[in-house]
């Protein structure tokens, strides 16, 4: 699933054969129940391009993915993929100033995000500003390094460290997630460290690292460009060739891989923490990667457990036994592996140990006899409705096309993605529930009782 080359072996060389390419690769809306009509091709330098016209409003969305994330960071450079993303907004050789400036001037919605697997950059603008977006995206893909200096690195390093404080250090329980992931994924696993990185590693980032990262990962052959919205295909193709065509192909980066993670036994972490309001527990299992076998079944397990007021875990813990304030179950599926998570907050006067025992009982019941026919049908129907709801902006469509391209190897995966859920059986859900065994991490957090907060709660 992670090959960098030959995903699109049959693709046209772009530009000169527009009409033919369109007829071969556009996906007919009538052919399938659920699809995003689009055209896909590749430039000579390896840049994959996906175009999806949508003329409802005079808007376009440009979305670029680079196939690199925090999983690809070397030892001692945690947080670098994200720091680099910040530097991508600091100017390029032909637009040496802030990238936000020309974009905000035309009312664009602009941002970039980094996760463990990929880095993306996107802007939504009026249709007339498509050349501006393509110019900027191509300029930082091809002409970035000339303007990045130590001062910009020092400044954005501080910004990112503030982001770390704001997202992880100020909110109660903020540092549980990275610490929990570090327990689930052992030392050396690409997901062991968090995308935000550590202060220490961020401080160590250098200009040399910037050059190396850009040279290794930011070639057009390691990226894909999606344009969705109100544009003319021929015009867009010409602009894309002009702007991105001259960028030289980069090296083929070595694909980061990981062996499946198996926990032979249970790991229990108990933490007493200042400044948190409740007793909370997280139970985490390593699970299959996104779209791998078993991934859809586990999503259905989540719905059966906490999909509504009468779902199994919610009704048992929150309403019948009243030992939990809330309980949530979800799967965080990524490219190399997933994590299955139960997150429960104790009701006043109850302990996280009580919660774990009650959760285990419910899980055992589902593993023992599987979901009812009714539970499965309801879960699938709600997942299906979620597919419609998640597609109502150009930004969502564009990012979905890139998600499918990178993960499934084709942007044309929407119907198949839904079909995975439609094909789930009661037996499959039962087996998935049974896989949530003792090979897991249980992470308890208890508030530290100080004199001050004792007074407050009395």
């Amino acid at each position, binding site marked *: 699933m992670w090959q960098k080359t030959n995903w699109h072996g049959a693709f046209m060389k772009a530009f000169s054969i527009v009409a033919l390419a369109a007829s071969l690769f556009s996906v007919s809306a009538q052919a399938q129940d659920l699809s995003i009509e689009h055209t896909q091709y590749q430039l*000579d330098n390896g840049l994959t391009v996906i175009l999806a016209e949508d003329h*409802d*409003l*005079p*808007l376009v969305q440009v979305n670029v993915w680079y196939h690199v994330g925090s999983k690809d960071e070397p030892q001692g450079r945690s947080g670098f993929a994200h720091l680099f993303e910040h530097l991508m907004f600091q100017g390029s*050789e*032909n*637009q040496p100033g*802030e990238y*936000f*400036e020309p974009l*905000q*001037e*035309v*009312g664009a919605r*602009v941002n970039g995000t980094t996760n463990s697997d990929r880095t993306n950059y996107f802007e*939504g*603008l*009026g*249709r*007339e*500003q498509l*050349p501006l977006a393509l*110019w900027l995206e191509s*300029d930082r893909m*091809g*002409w970035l390094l*000339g303007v990045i200096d130590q001062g910009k690195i020092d*400044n954005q390093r*501080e*910004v990112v*460290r*503030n982001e770390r*404080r*704001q997202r992880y250090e*100020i*909110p*109660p329980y903020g540092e549980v997630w990275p610490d929990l992931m570090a327990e689930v994924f052992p030392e050396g696993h690409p997901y062991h460290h968090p995308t935000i990185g550590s202060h220490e590693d961020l401080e160590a980032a250098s200009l040399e690292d910037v050059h190396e990262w850009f040279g290794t990962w930011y070639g057009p052959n390691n990226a894909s460009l999606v344009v969705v919205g*109100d544009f003319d295909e021929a015009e867009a193709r010409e602009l894309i*060739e*002009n702007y991105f*065509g*001259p960028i030289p192909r980069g090296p083929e980066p070595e694909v980061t891989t990981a062996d499946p993670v198996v926990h032979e036994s249970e790991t229990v972490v108990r933490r007493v923490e200042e*400044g948190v*309001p*409740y007793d909370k527990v997280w139970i985490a299992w390593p699970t299959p990667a996104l779209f791998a076998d078993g991934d859809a079944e586990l999503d259905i397990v989540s719905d059966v457990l906490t999909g*509504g*007021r*009468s779902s199994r875990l919610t009704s048992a813990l*929150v*309403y019948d036994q009243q030992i939990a304030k809330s309980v949530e179950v979800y799967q965080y599926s990524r490219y190399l592996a997933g994590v299955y998570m139960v997150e429960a907050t104790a009701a*006043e006067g109850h302990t996280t140990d009580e919660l774990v025992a009650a959760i285990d009982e419910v899980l055992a019941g589902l593993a023992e006899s599987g979901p009812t026919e009714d539970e499965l049908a*309801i879960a699938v*129907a709600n997942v*299906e*409705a979620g597919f*419609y*709801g998640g597609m*109502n902006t150009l930004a969502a469509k564009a990012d979905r096309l890139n998600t499918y391209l990178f993960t499934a190897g084709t942007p044309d995966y929407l119907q198949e993605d839904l079909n995975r859920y439609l094909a789930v059986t009661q037996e499959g859900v039962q087996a998935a529930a049974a896989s949530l065994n003792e090979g897991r991490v249980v992470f308890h957090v208890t508030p530290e009782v100080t004199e001050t907060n004792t007074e*407050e709660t009395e």
Partner: protein
Amino acid sequence: MRSISLVLLLAACAPKSVEPEVSVEPAFDRTSQPAPLERSEFALPVAVTGQLSNGLNVTLVEDHSMPMVELSLAFQVGGWSDPEGQYTLANSAFDMLTEGAGELDAAALSTELRRLASRLSSGGGDDGGSISLTTLSRNLGPSLDLMALTLLDPTFSESEWEIKQRSALQNLAAVRSDATKVARRIAANVMFGDVYSGRLSTEEQISSISVEDMRSWWAVNGVAANANLYVSGDVTLDELLPMLEERFGGWEAGEESVAPEYTLSDLSETQIHFVDMPGAAQSVFRLWSSMPNPSADGYESVRLGNQAFGGMFTARLNMNLREDKGYTYGANSWVNWDHGPARWELGTSIRTDATVAAMNEILAELAAVVADERPLTDNEIERGRSNIIQGFPGRFERASYMLGQLSSMWRYDLPEDWVDGYIARAESVTSDQARDAFSTHIASQPFSAIIVGDWATVGEGLSELGLSIHHLDVDGNTVERAVPESAPEEVDEALSEE
């Protein structure tokens, strides 16, 4: 003009190695910002309206791109109507509407909705509440049946409320331990005092609310005269109205509840309200001051001036505190209004050791705008204006945005052309007006700064700014706090008194 000078400047710098090798049109030049393509006309989404026999107004924006319908029954009565000592009664009542209705208990109601793959939720705030439904268009009828049931025959079950009440009490503890939430809560309290959104919920108040109180509140306030129905999605008005009349037409019209007008606390001088959170990695800032209301002269001018000062990523405030100094992940300012008068607000989270420096920068930026030392430039204001105008169409990707604007117009009695006249209003303000208005109404006025942070680290420096500092606990109660001791050579006895 700008792009021409860039070409001249940069043409020589373009690296040779990256000259296009493929044949491209000779006119193509990557060294300058490209000209826009032809603009096409943007038309606002069309909202159509109808009325049920009980007077309930229905507004629909059709959108047939997905087989879904979204409805929001919006109420213009909310927390402002809470009786003395029972703050959050209205919120609690809204919350409980969907926890059992008619013959269905909460669990059965949830199951029926999930069978239809529909989501029904309810909730409230200080200015209103809503019951919202998202459903597949093919399941609209049976989903509306359930929505109508929650509206016409809510149970207000005692046992469900016990669980929610306990949860609400726990939520209070969560609010107190999150610096960002504390700052927001205290800012409202400092602004309004102990009325409206300035009231702080307490254990006592939450505990005093009973299901009987909710029933009484709902009997008076849960009436059609207080509501409007907003719908978007895959349905036409001709299909919709008969379905609604059948289910909602018999709902009591009742009498409209009218919100009082609230005023802001008077500010005679700029002041700091400090809440101590020992060990905090950042100081959370919330600033506010008064400004003209949306219907008053000067509102649009202040709004445009603010866009240039702190309303965008590239505005002065963020460019200074984030992109130049690296004190924060982001800083911005905005205009805000509700049933209370309009105010200008600023928010940011500053790394602890830069707290005093950041406060100084904010003061200096405001002073510079006033003193004509660095007035907002035409260029900054035009960029702000362009951002507002050109960004307008992008807000309408979701029909819910248009409906949100329409419901605000109704809730707050905004002018009829609030949406239609949006661009014209932004165009009508001159640069001079924006510059002067921001200077007169905002930058030269006193403001309140709520800062939640680590007093032991920042206290001494803040005390040296010469601003009055009021110390509060996380519940807004006044407390005494001494200026922390620091390295002896830095102690200034004269300034360490409040």
